[in-house]
């Protein structure tokens, strides 16, 4: 229970003590002053706390695994330095996969130095000087918000004073879907659950009162600062009455226990979501992570992401590899691929996906990332899923899609029903088709239903819900060009079907 130091004299039964304490609190109203001493004890700055608690959880596992890796490395180094190609590659895969697939922190904040400095400064003030603060990090998905925060926290934890004092509470809007769960999680992460104990009092209000008391009793100089990070901040705004946000921001406004609230969100309009009373308590400090990277620095980050660290086991191999990566970034076709990718998205995550796909093609027989690998990876990344699905349709289903396309052309995108599609299809069969047979209506209905299952067509909801299936209005969820392109690549498409699709009207 390291985090908060309990007064020693209560020793033995912590729970019993807590219960006694809290029954007292609950029964004797207004006795807050009396037990304020105890409460602030909970949040007192620890002189030299146990080290396990020092690192916030979340960073601990990284450091551990890295230590282990270093250990293995040094052990191997003693034996031999020239590994076989297979071993080297497996080591490369391990290293790079950790970078690309696991949130392995990079060495420094690339392309977001100013934001990094800003945030670090802010949190340092909380950690060291006990200043309360609140800040929002806003940026699109995959822009590196979490990475930025983790980098800052890592650096923060290297400051001795901060490491000893700061209490970290990590919340995620995806997990803490309402305030009750969030509160429980906070108590858990502050290691207070022994004190709260479900049986002593379990209601939301009581929990909240307890936490607030604990947080409010402190003051700037004597309390340990608490750092709240709220991932998916916008989801917290959907909680009832925004109770949690209100209270957290309220504390951050007043000179009580030093609290820093860091919210991460991808919504630019996040402030609109906050209630007025919540909004007024927010510091309105926002850090925007809108990438201003140009293509050259994008290329640099690709190179950085792929190259091996200088402490790699086999020096010769790592030099070769790094040279290979450098050559790759200079290669014309690879550059074209990256340019295309850069023009569609600049975020780290989609880049990681691309590089991961390219990396997965590296084997012993192909011991470096070639431009073709990158090309293939980008082809996989950008392939049109709907076109892929269209390629797997049967001829009959494809004909129905074409019929719907024609209906869309004729009626200008108005919804249609099966009967109309069938009529269009029948016209085609009678007039032009040589290769497609006349199918019975139930067979066509089944094909139509399959398209609906695949969500290529979507029923219009509303009044039509009670009508017969064949008269239910539906809408085609495919684009004109999408159909035509898919048709071009459709394996062994009969020419008359192709011509029908290309013709202007049915």
């Amino acid at each position, binding site marked *: 229970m390291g985090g908060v130091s309990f007064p020693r004299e209560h020793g033995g039964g912590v729970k019993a003590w807590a219960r006694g304490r809290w029954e007292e609190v609950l029964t004797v109203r207004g006795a807050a002053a009396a037990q304020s001493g105890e409460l602030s004890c909970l949040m007192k700055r620890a002189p030299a706390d146990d080290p396990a608690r020092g690192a916030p959880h979340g960073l601990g*596992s990284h450091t551990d695994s890295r230590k282990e890796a270093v250990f293995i490395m040094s052990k191997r180094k003693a034996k031999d330095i020239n590994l076989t190609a297979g071993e080297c*590659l*497996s080591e490369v*895969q*391990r290293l790079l*996969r950790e970078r690309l*697939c*696991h949130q392995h922190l990079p060495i420094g904040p690339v392309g977001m130095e100013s934001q990094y400095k800003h945030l670090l400064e802010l949190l340092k003030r909380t950690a060291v000087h006990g200043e309360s603060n609140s800040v929002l990090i806003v940026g699109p*998905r*995959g822009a590196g918000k*979490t990475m930025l925060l983790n980098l800052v926290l890592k650096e923060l934890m290297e400051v001795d004073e901060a490491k000893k004092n700061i209490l970290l509470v990590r919340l995620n*809007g*995806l*997990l*803490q*879907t309402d305030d009750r*769960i969030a509160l429980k*999680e906070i108590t858990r992460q502050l290691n207070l659950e022994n004190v709260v104990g479900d049986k002593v009092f379990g209601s939301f209000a009581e929990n909240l009162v307890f936490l607030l008391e604990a947080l409010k009793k402190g003051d700037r100089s004597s309390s340990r600062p608490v750092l709240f990070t709220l991932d998916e901040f*916008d989801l917290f705004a959907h909680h009832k009455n925004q109770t949690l946000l209100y209270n957290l921001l309220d504390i951050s406004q007043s000179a009580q226990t030093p609290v820093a609230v860091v919210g991460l969100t*991808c*919504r630019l309009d996040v402030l609109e979501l906050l209630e007025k009373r919540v909004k007024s308590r927010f510091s309105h400090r926002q850090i925007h992570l809108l990438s201003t990277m140009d293509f050259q620095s994008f290329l640099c980050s690709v190179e950085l992401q792929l190259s091996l660290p200088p402490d790699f086991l086999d020096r010769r191999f790592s030099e070769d590899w790094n040279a290979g990566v450098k050559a790759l970034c200079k290669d014309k076709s690879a550059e074209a691929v990256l340019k295309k990718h850069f023009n569609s998205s600049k975020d780290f*995550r*989609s880049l990681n*996906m691309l590089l*991961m796909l390219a990396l*997965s*093609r590296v084997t012993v*027989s*192909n011991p470096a990332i070639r431009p073709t690998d990158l090309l293939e990876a980008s082809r996989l*990344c950008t*392939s049109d*899923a*709907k076109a*892929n*699905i269209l*390629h*797997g*349709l*049967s*001829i*009959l289903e494809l004909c129905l899609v074409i019929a719907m396309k024609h209906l869309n052309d004729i009626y200008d995108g108005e919804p249609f*029903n099966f*009967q109309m599609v069938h*009529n269009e299809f029948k016209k085609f069969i009678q007039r032009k088709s040589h290769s*497609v*047979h006349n*199918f*019975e209506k*139930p*067979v066509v209905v*089944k*094909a139509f239903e399959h398209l609906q299952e*695949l*969500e290529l067509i979507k029923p219009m909801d509303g009044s039509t819900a*009670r*009508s*017969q299936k*064949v008269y239910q209005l539906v809408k085609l969820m495919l684009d004109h060009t999408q159909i035509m392109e898919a048709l071009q690549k459709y*394996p*062994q498409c009969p020419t008359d079907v192709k011509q029908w699709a290309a013709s202007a009207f049915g």
Partner: protein
Amino acid sequence: MSVPLHHPGYDEDRVQLLMEKLPCRETQIGTLLALMGEPEQYCYPSIFIYGHRATGKSHVTQGLLRELELPHAVVSCVECVSAGILFEQVLLAFFGSSSTDSLPRNPFLSDFVRIYRQLCGQFPATQTRYIVLDKAELLRDMDANLLPGFLRLQELVEDNLTVILLSEIVWDKFRPNTGCYEPLLLHFPNYSKVELQQILAWDTHPSYSPELYSSYINILLGVFFSVCRDLRELRHLAALNFQKFCEPLEAGEAKEKDSHKLWRNIEPHLKKAMQTVYLRDVCSVQWEEAQSEEREVADLKGFSVHDHVELPYYSKYLLIAAYLASYNPARTDRRFFLKHHGKIKKTNFLKKHEKTSNHLLGPKPFPLDRLLAIFYSVVDSRVAPTASVFAQISSLVTLQLLTLMSHDDQLDAPKYKCAISSLVTLQLLTLMSHDDQLDAPKYKCAVSLDFIRAISRTVGFDILRYLYDFL
């Protein structure tokens, strides 16, 4: 895409065996294995595999994980009526039977993540753990945080973990409004005709040569391939019809080499099968029985309820009247049902600019008055509706009255009401009225043209003469 042959970290014989067990999916297996990397290396946090039904999504993924003995949990989302069941299955698969004890009764994602982290601290992963969520499209209907949560589960639980989602629907339809962690998309293409032939020809009949079976499959694909590319369905059809294919061989009328004769024999049967078995109109046992008794398949066709509805005389007329009211424009009633309708110019009457027929657009709602008016005019006037007839009808109707609609009790003619409401309960008529129109309920006829023609034939009524669309 070339198939990387060497997969370090995995037993080569096993991979080879796997490739043989899962024919025609070598590329997909290769890509998946390459993505997974060595067992202890990290894999991408979430992979989304999509493709049509029976393209081997689950088969390949599960086979791979099982054969290579990687720690994995396979959960079909169809089975998960609540998220709790999903969490339970994942925990059970990874951490054994005692792991679910601490899961509360109605667990949230946060509980799951907390317990997973606890257990993961006790039993850290030596190899990548895989969670396979089959039929992932159903995740969308569960709690809103579940799908984004699973997509970034690796980050949330901080374990060497990969979530594989399998679905028939494209990823675009999954993406929540505010976006989420994008998974790596992987497409499983359909088997081509050649591949289908190869796979289907695997299950040969012991008493016939593989070549014969293969040629049989060829014929089968010739008939069904343009309609159906679902391996599972084709397999079912192949098994069902093979007996028939072999009949001439057993009777000694043909030899295995007489492929043309065999083809002539089987083709009509396959075509019939497409109209019945493929549509699931009849169950395969009935089909087989009919095949052995040489019954006409046309008899079989009517196993659906609609072809067997037996209605009282007046109900039939009411239904016919309802059909006419639904599909004819109201302005044409004068022309159809009045004996002395005066002069209506034919050119005027058939407004040719109304191009789309009502049989394309579907039935229109109509008020009760119109239905009754048409009913009186079409029903044979010699059989005047008497109270006893209606009593008979209503007593017959009471048997089905259990689901009588409650808000049409303001009808003027209670006897008609019974007959009509029985039609409503049979879903042949659809009640259109809203609560504010209690006095004038509206109906819609909900039967097909074929059905109404069959009905009118039984009462000797030529319905086509009364339909505006067929003039």
